[in-house]
C-alpha cells in the first residue's frame, strides 16, 4: 500500500508541477523618431515549480522581434541573438538595458512616450501571454 501511495504521489507531483509565469514592469524604450529599432524590457518571474522557456515574441509595431543579449567584449558592445530564454522555477530573469532584451527591429511607426504597446510572449509550456508595455524614457 505504502509503495502504491508513493508512486501515486510521484505521478500527482509530475502532473501538477508546472510553471507559472508572471511579467513585471514591462517597458519599451522611447527612442528618437528617426530610430528604426528599440527594445522591450521586463522582469519575467516563474513562481511555479517547473521551468519554462520563452521561445518567441510577437508585435504589430515592427517587422522583426527577437530575443537578444547585449554583451561587452573587451569594450565592444555586441548584440547576441538568443534562441530561447529559460526561466527556472521559483526564480526570475531580468531583461534590462545592457543585458537581455527583446529587440524590436524595423519599427513601422514612431512611438510616443506613455503609449502602451501590445506584445505576445510565447512560452513553451505556459503558451501565449499578452502584455501591454508603456513607452518610457529611461
Amino acid at each position: 500500500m505504502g509503495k502504491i501511495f508513493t508512486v501515486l504521489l510521484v505521478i500527482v507531483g509530475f502532473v501538477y508541477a508546472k510553471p507559472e509565469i508572471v511579467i513585471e514592469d514591462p517597458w519599451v524604450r522611447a527612442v528618437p523618431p528617426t530610430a528604426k529599432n528599440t527594445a522591450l524590457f521586463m522582469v519575467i518571474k516563474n513562481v511555479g515549480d517547473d521551468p519554462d522557456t520563452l521561445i518567441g515574441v510577437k508585435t504589430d509595431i515592427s517587422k522583426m522581434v527577437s530575443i537578444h543579449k547585449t554583451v561587452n567584449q573587451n569594450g565592444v558592445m555586441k548584440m547576441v541573438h538568443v534562441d530561447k530564454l529559460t526561466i527556472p522555477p521559483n526564480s526570475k530573469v531580468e531583461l534590462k538595458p545592457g543585458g537581455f532584451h527583446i529587440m524590436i527591429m524595423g519599427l513601422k511607426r514612431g512611438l510616443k512616450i506613455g503609449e502602451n504597446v501590445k506584445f505576445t510572449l510565447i512560452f513553451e509550456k505556459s503558451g501565449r501571454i499578452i502584455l501591454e508595455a508603456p513607452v518610457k524614457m529611461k
Partner: protein
Amino acid sequence: MKRVVGILAVFLLLSYLSHGYQFYGYPYIQKIKNFTLINQDGKEVSFSDFRGKYLLVFFGYTFCPDVCPTSMLRIKETLDYLGSYKKYVHVLFISVDPERDTPELLKRFISFYDPSGKYITGLTGKPEEIKKVAKMFKAYYEKVPIKDNPEVGYLVDHTAFIYLIDKKGILRIIFRPANDDPKRIAQDIIQVIKIFGVE
C-alpha cells in the same frame, strides 16, 4: 612597464591636483589632433571650434537599439546634474554609421536628448574621415548584417566609452559603459573643470 608607470603618473597627478578626489572614470592624457566633420546642419565643423569648452565625446549611431540610447540618456542626465557647470560643457555625438546617418537624421536624434539644441552636436562625414577620428580615440566599430531580414539591414558593434576632453583639447577621462552613473560622471566633470579652469 613604461606604460604602467605612465598610467600611474596620470592617476597620481590628477588625484594630487584634486586633493585626493577619487575619479569615477579612468584618468588619461592624450592630445586630440584636430579633425573636421559635418554637423547636424550639414555644415563643416572642426574639433578646434570647440576649444574653450569641456567636451563629452561619444561614438554611436542613430539606428542603435540598446547601447546608444542608454548612453545618450546617461549623458542627458549627466548634463542635468552639472547645474551651473553645464554651460562649460558640450557633447559630441560622432556617428559610426555615416552611410545611414545623414545630418537630418542626426538632427532629429540629438534633439530628442537635447531639445534646446545647445548642448549636443551630432557629427557625421566621409567613412574614411570617421575611421581616422575613431582610431585616434581608439574607438572600434564594425557592421554586423542581420540575417533573415535585409529590410532592417545591419547593426554596428562598437565601443561605448564616453570621453571627457578638457578646454584645450586634451583627453582627460574615459568612462566605460559600466561607469554609467550620471551623478558620478558629473562630479568627475566638475572636478576636472575645477582643476583646469574656465575661459
